[in-house]
């Protein structure tokens, strides 16, 4: 089993709701708290497991805004785990989730250097490295209804841009989405083989604007515009 996320860049609206839901759940979760520094001051900062960046793709007029949520990719070649000198970082054999044992971490930052995706952030207060747990305390919680056994970010996403599932199962919805939509990994040249995949924006036929049939109302409007301009 290889649990991970598939993120649809076509439908992500960049609202940061996933990051907020993540913070809200995990600040009382297994690696809690997610400390904030100066939260109401001039320099607010703090620990987040999920960050959303916004990019402009292409040049005007053929450009597009793409919102880019990024959390731990739960890589197959998780070098954050192999470089860890204390054994605090580990990758679970049964589902591929990468976690940090808060009781073993000595806060040397080395794993964050090894992570290309910025998934790991040091908590200055506890002195330990913290990262996305794929809401391991939700997805295996047998006390909550089955449909809620998903990461907080996935449940909260208003655009359904986030999907959670087993990427090892070729017939799982996430695997099918990756197959059908040409899902890809970030920075594949580094060979970390991240589990999380990103679905590119759909290529849609452009809506013609030049040769629209002019209706009578529109003709009148254009005539009025010309007259008023004079």
């Amino acid at each position: 089993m290889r649990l991970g996320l598939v993120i649809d860049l076509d439908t992500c609206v960049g609202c940061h709701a996933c990051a907020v839901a993540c913070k809200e759940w995990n600040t009382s979760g297994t690696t809690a708290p997610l400390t904030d520094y100066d939260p109401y001051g001039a320099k607010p900062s703090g620990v987040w497991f999920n960050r959303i960046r916004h990019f402009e793709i292409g040049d005007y007029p053929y450009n597009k805004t793409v919102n880019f949520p990024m959390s731990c990719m739960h890589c197959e070649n998780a070098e954050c785990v192999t470089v860890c000198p204390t054994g605090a970082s580990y990758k679970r054999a049964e589902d591929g989730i990468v976690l940090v044992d808060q009781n073993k971490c000595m806060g040397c930052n080395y794993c964050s250097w090894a992570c290309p995706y910025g998934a790991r952030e040091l908590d200055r207060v506890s002195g330990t490295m913290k990262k996305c747990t794929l809401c391991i305390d939700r997805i295996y919680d047998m006390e909550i209804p089955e449909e809620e056994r998903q990461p907080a970010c996935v449940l909260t996403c208003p655009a359904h841009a986030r999907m959670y599932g087993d990427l090892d199962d070729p017939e799982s919805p996430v695997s099918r989405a990756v197959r059908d939509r040409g899902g890809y990994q970030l920075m594949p040249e580094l060979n970390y083989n991240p589990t999380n995949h990103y679905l590119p924006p759909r290529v849609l036929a452009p809506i013609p604007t030049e040769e629209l049939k002019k209706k009578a109302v529109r003709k009148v409007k254009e005539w009025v515009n010309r007259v008023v301009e004079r």
Partner: protein
Amino acid sequence: MHPALAVIFLTLFSGGGFGIMALTAIINDFQIDGGLNPLQTMIAVILSLVFVSIGMLSSTAHLANPKNAWRAFTRWRTSWLAREGVFAVLYYPFAFAYLIWVFFTAGTQDTVGLILANLAGLIGLITIFCQGMIYAVLRTIRQWNTALVPANFYVMGLAIGATILAAERMIMGAPAPTLVGIALGLLVAAAVMKGIYYFWISRPNGPTIRTATGFNRFTVRILEQGHTFGTFLTEEFGHTLPSAKARNIKFMMYIFAFIIPVAALVIGILTAQMAFPWIAVISVVFGIGVERWLFFVEAQHVINLYHGRQQC
């Protein structure tokens, strides 16, 4: 990268300390310039231990949660950082044993003494290799992901060690022509190695913002980083150095790390003035400290691509 003083001191001082020990062993092996007498040997080993200890202690200052530092010796099978820790600790008993042996028997060059000295020197050299590999294995940082990094650490550590040993001999009034020659050779080699390194990293060829986002056929620009102030990621990885400033600092670094020590050692051996060996030592440690600062501040982690950098 954030140039943390703790890590700069770790690589600078422990590299120099292991360099002193390795060269002490070699000098006594081959009786270069007659070898070091017991007093000189003890001073050299004590200097080595002090340097290594400064490095190790300052490295713990880098830890946010040092109470778990003892666990850092456990994952030596995969982690170069753990291997470095294991070998650095293993260095102490051998160096101390040699120090005690020399103190009680004055046997700097007898069989037991040489075995202890060479083992300590060898463990020191292995530790320098592990230290270099800590950085060289990171595929996320192009400027570090090269075999030149451990090679540079070696030649710099040995250059510091050779300069200190040559200076020690000169200050103590013993003949040191070959030691000065070794120091000059290592300083020149270090300068050349650093030049090769700077040539190697000069042209960006790492991942780009396009492969980072997957939009390989389009120009990609950052619109918003998604946070109002800095994050751990911008604090740790966001440092850059304008190229003009970097050039000036490298020029200064070359003067302090290589040119002044070479000149001071040559003038020192010609004039037998006590001040010049001191100048050589202070200058080489400061200069290679600046080199280590540049090593960190010039390293560009690929996370910067997600903060708007076009290529690493």
